[in-house]
């Protein structure tokens, strides 16, 4: 189900939360919304799920205007808020039972058991939520969101506060949703590697403005196609430095030597250097991080195809 965001403005008092972002989230994609704190990600999500109304502009979910639909938009959009929580006295199954009945679903048709299985909480289903870890709580929240088989799933900072194992489990669930369903997943995160791994497309917001939007691969490429070869010298650091000179931009960074060069030149470099001089090496491809910092540094918004447009200015602001 496609989501279309058109010139949305929202301010709280003197604070401009959203300043006219416009972009489309393709149906069936996993889409990331990136930005620094206060960039407008949560505000965008609140408008998207009908918690608030934009001052101007429109958001459509599958052709349905969110402002007109009000709370009924959440029939189509399941939302996992960043600060979702559950009464400690209820069990995981009871929480999902409440959700099912609120959505008018038949709680007895096995769907609750299925989603508990999906998020890996089947064994803990009948334990009180008070005994759940942070990660289990987040997975329970995801299970609640999945219960209604939503065509759109909005996840606000879904892995915030999770340990690495919890993060990995969560990633696995989102990847499975991406693989096995045609649900549109929209997530925000501060972890760029997470977005890079899970999302096909991203939008980068800063101070309420759209700074970049497009497929992750294209944004990465737009930030340059150079790679960085990181070499840790074995014994003779000077000899290794001599060997890499002239093969790219050479910098010494602590115990390692970094050579930034074209992708093809990296293969040549690794072939040319005597392996006895190198203790360990690593090749870093251009990542989303560079695209993110580039986007924050620009004044206008940038699309994945490299075209730039000025962000629309709103009179009176």
């Amino acid at each position, binding site marked *: 189900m496609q989501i279309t965001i058109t010139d949305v403005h929202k301010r709280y008092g003197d604070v401009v939360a959203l300043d006219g972002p416009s972009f489309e989230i393709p149906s069936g994609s996993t889409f990331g919304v990136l930005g620094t704190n206060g960039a407008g990600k949560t505000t965008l999500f609140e408008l998207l799920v009908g918690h608030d109304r934009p001052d101007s502009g429109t958001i459509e979910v599958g052709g349905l205007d969110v402002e007109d639909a009000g709370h009924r938009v959440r029939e189509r959009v399941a939302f996992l808020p960043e600060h979702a929580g559950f009464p400690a*006295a209820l069990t995981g199954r009871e929480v999902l039972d409440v959700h099912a009945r609120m959505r008018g679903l038949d709680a007895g048709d096995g769907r609750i058991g299925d989603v508990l299985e999906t998020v890996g909480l089947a064994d803990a289903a009948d334990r009180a939520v008070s005994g759940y870890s942070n990660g289990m709580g987040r997975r329970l929240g995801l299970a609640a969101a999945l219960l209604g088989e939503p065509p759109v799933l909005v996840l606000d900072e879904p892995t915030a506060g999770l340990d690495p194992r919890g993060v990995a489990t969560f990633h696995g669930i989102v990847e499975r949703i991406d693989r096995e369903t045609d649900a549109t997943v929209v997530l925000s995160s501060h972890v760029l590697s997470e977005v890079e791994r899970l999302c096909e497309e991203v939008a980068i917001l800063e101070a309420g403005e759209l700074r970049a939007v497009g497929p992750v691969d294209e944004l990465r490429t737009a930030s340059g196609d150079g790679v960085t070869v990181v070499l840790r010298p074995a014994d003779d650091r000077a000899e290794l430095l001599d060997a890499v000179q002239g093969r790219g931009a050479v910098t010494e960074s602590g115990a390692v030597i970094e050579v930034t060069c074209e992708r093809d030149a990296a293969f040549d470099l690794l072939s040319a250097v005597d392996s006895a001089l190198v203790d360990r090496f690593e090749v870093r491809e251009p990542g989303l991080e560079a695209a993110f910092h580039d986007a924050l540094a620009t004044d206008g918004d940038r699309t994945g195809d490299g075209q730039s447009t000025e962000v629309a200015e709103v009179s009176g602001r």
Partner: protein
Amino acid sequence: MTDDTVPRPDGGYASAGSTDVTTERDTRAADGLGSGKWYRQLLVVAGTEYRLAIRGRWAIAMTAIFTAFALGLTTFSGSSVGPEGFERTVASLAVLAVYLVPLVALAFSYDAVVGREESGWLHTLFALPVDRALIVVGTAVGRAVVFAGAAIIGFGAAGFFLLGEFGTTGFDVYASFLLATVGLGLVFLAVGVLVSALAPEKTHALGLSLLAWAWFVLVHDLLGLGVIAALDLTDAAVSAMLLANPTGIFRALVLGSLGAAGDAGFAAVLAEAGLSTPVLAAALLAWIVLPIALAAVAVRRRRL
């Protein structure tokens, strides 16, 4: 993403022809069947609140408090009761209830919204396709049932004790007192819910609730007596002053059922204001409904 699948994130996925599922969901949404109907949603929220209050031992605690105070006062005043035992005990219990019942009701309700927000449960409920106002009303209804149950059992225990002591003569007075007590408690429960919907933090809600208790239970009557003593007020003004305070309404209801012209304080004047029992009961009902309606409006504007 596959193009020929339908949303089945609960484990599997169906293949083609599958867009019918989305269409069905849309159809259900259009005719109001996509999510639970509003009264079902209200009952689910109320039932959940009820369950949480039982498990959180609020129900037991409130029942124990009401039972202990009611039985204690009944036993304590037993030696002085004669043939009019029910009425005297009700007069004593009414004085106790005016202080105790609002305090317990506010303590039980001040975190109904803001507390649920701080625990994250409100965020979770608001993510569902349900009007926020329903969540507030459901929360109030669930807690009201628990409170009413505790008050009826607690004060009812004293009633049974008196029933064994004096028989059924005068029990109707006690039943009226019991109903008025439940009504008084529900008013302050509603006020607590309103405070909870307005307060940004739980501690603020607690402070505001204590201020509300002090105003309605202590200050309003004193001010009212002072104004009546100092000014020559019309009956309408006195009536308005009474109706502006639910504890005054409660006193007037209870004293009216006793047939007494007055007890201490503001109520002595009120009996002459000409307010009938149905008017007083309607006013008490308005005091229950209005704060919850305002809370429902406030929570729609609340930014989490």
